[in-house]
C-alpha cells in the first residue's frame, strides 16, 4: 500500500495507523496518551496530522487513524502545528506542575499560556487505567462521573482490593512526573529549555526537516538574538 507522507511516497502495511507509518519513516509526531504497550485511546489529540488535499483536508488523530491507499499525510503542516500548540497550551494550563507537559511546551516553542492555570493533577489521558487493566491485569481504577466532573478513582473512592500497589499507574502518569524544581518552579510556564519554533514554518507553511529539536535554525536564530541584544 502506498501513501504520501510529507510529500514523499512511501510503502506502508495494511493495518498500520498513520502514527505507525510516521514512526517507521522517522517523522516525529508528538504523542501523550499513546503508549506502545497499551491500546490506543485517542484522548489527548496531540498526535493530530492533516490528511487529504487542499480545502478538503482535515485533522485526525494519527494514533487511531488507519492508513489507506493513496492517503496524503502531513505531520507538520501549519494547521497541525497550530492545533498542537493550542492543545499543549491548554494542557499546561491544566497541569503546570507536569514535567512532560512543560517539556512539550518548550519543544514546541510555546512562550505564554493564555489560560488561567488550574493546578489539576490529572489530564484524563487514561494511561493509568489502561496500564492497570492491560499490563497489570488488576482493573483497580477507572473513569467515573462525566463532563467536568470526570475523574480517575477506585470503586467507591476507597482502597481497592484489586490494587496491588505496584505503582505502574504512577509510573506512566504524565501529570505525576513533577517538573524540575528550579528557580522558576512555580511559574505557569517553565520555558527552561525553550526551543525556538522552526523558522522554516513561517516561510513554507510546513516544517522542512524532522530533526527534534530542530538545531540548525535554532542556532541561527539565537545568533540573531544575541546580535539584537548587543545593539540595545
Amino acid at each position, binding site marked *: 500500500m502506498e501513501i504520501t507522507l510529507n510529500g514523499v511516497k512511501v510503502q506502508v502495511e495494511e493495518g498500520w495507523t498513520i502514527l505507525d507509518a510516521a514512526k517507521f519513516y522517522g517523522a516525529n509526531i508528538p504523542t501523550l496518551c499513546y503508549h506502545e504497550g497499551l491500546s490506543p485511546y485517542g484522548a489527548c489529540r496531540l498526535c493530530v496530522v492533516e490528511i487529504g488535499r487542499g480545502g478538503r483536508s482535515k485533522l485526525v488523530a494519527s494514533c487511531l487513524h488507519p492508513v489507506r491507499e493513496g492517503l496524503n499525510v502531513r505531520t507538520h503542516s501549519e494547521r497541525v502545528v497550530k492545533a498542537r500548540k493550542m492543545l499543549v497550551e491548554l494542557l499546561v494550563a491544566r497541569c503546570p506542575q507536569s514535567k512532560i507537559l512543560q517539556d512539550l511546551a518548550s519543544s514546541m516553542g510555546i512562550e505564554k499560556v493564555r489560560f488561567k492555570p488550574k493546578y489539576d493533577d490529572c489530564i484524563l489521558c487514561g494511561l493509568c487505567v489502561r496500564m492497570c487493566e492491560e499490563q497489570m491485569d488488576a482493573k483497580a*481504577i477507572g473513569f467515573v462521573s*462525566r463532563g467536568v466532573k470526570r475523574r480517575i478513582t477506585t*470503586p467507591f473512592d476507597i482502597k481497592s482490593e484489586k490494587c496491588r500497589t505496584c505503582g505502574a499507574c504512577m509510573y506512566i502518569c504524565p501529570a505525576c512526573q513533577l517538573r524540575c524544581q528550579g528557580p522558576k518552579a512555580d511559574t505557569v510556564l517553565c520555558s527552561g529549555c525553550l526551543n525556538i519554533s522552526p523558522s522554516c514554518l513561517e516561510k513554507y507553511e510546513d516544517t522542512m526537516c524532522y530533526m527534534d529539536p530542530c538545531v540548525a535554525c535554532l542556532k541561527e536564530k539565537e545568533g540573531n538574538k544575541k546580535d539584537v541584544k548587543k545593539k540595545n
Partner: protein
Amino acid sequence: MHGELLSKDFPAIDAIIKKYGERKEFLICILQDIQARYGYLPKEALTRVAEKLDIPLIQIYSVATFFKAFSLRPKGGHTIHVCLGTACHVRGAERVLGKIKRDLDINVDETTKDMNFTLKTVNCLGACALGPIVEIDGKHYGNMTTVKVESVLKKYSIKKME
C-alpha cells in the same frame, strides 16, 4: 422498599441478575432494577453484580456514576426539587432553598438523617409564572416563600415539626 437496607440481601440481587440471564449487556437494566428495589445502589449489591457478571467493579462504578438516574447514596422517602431557574431565582428561590437547608439541616444532594427527605435543585420546571417553585414527589408548590415552604415541609415530615 425505600430505605430498606439489607446488606446481605443477595438472593434478591441474584434473582434480578438471573432475570436478565446473567448477561453483561444488561448491566444497566440490572442496575435500574436494583435502584428500583432499594431506592439507590448499595455498595454490596454492586460488588455482588461484579462477581456474578464477572465485570470489574470499577466498570460498574463508572456506569453507576455516569448516569444521573442512578444514585449511590440512599434516597429519602420524599424528594424535594427546588427550582433555581432564572425566573425562580429572581423571585427569591435562593432564600427558599436556604430555608429548606436550614430546616432540614442538609445540603443539596443530601438526605436527612431520618431518611425522610432528599434535597435536589433543578434549572426550570417549566412553570416560571408560578415561581419560586418547590416540587415534592412530583407535586408542585408555587409562589413559595420562606414562610409558606415551612408549612409545606410539615405536611411531609414524619414526626410533625415542632
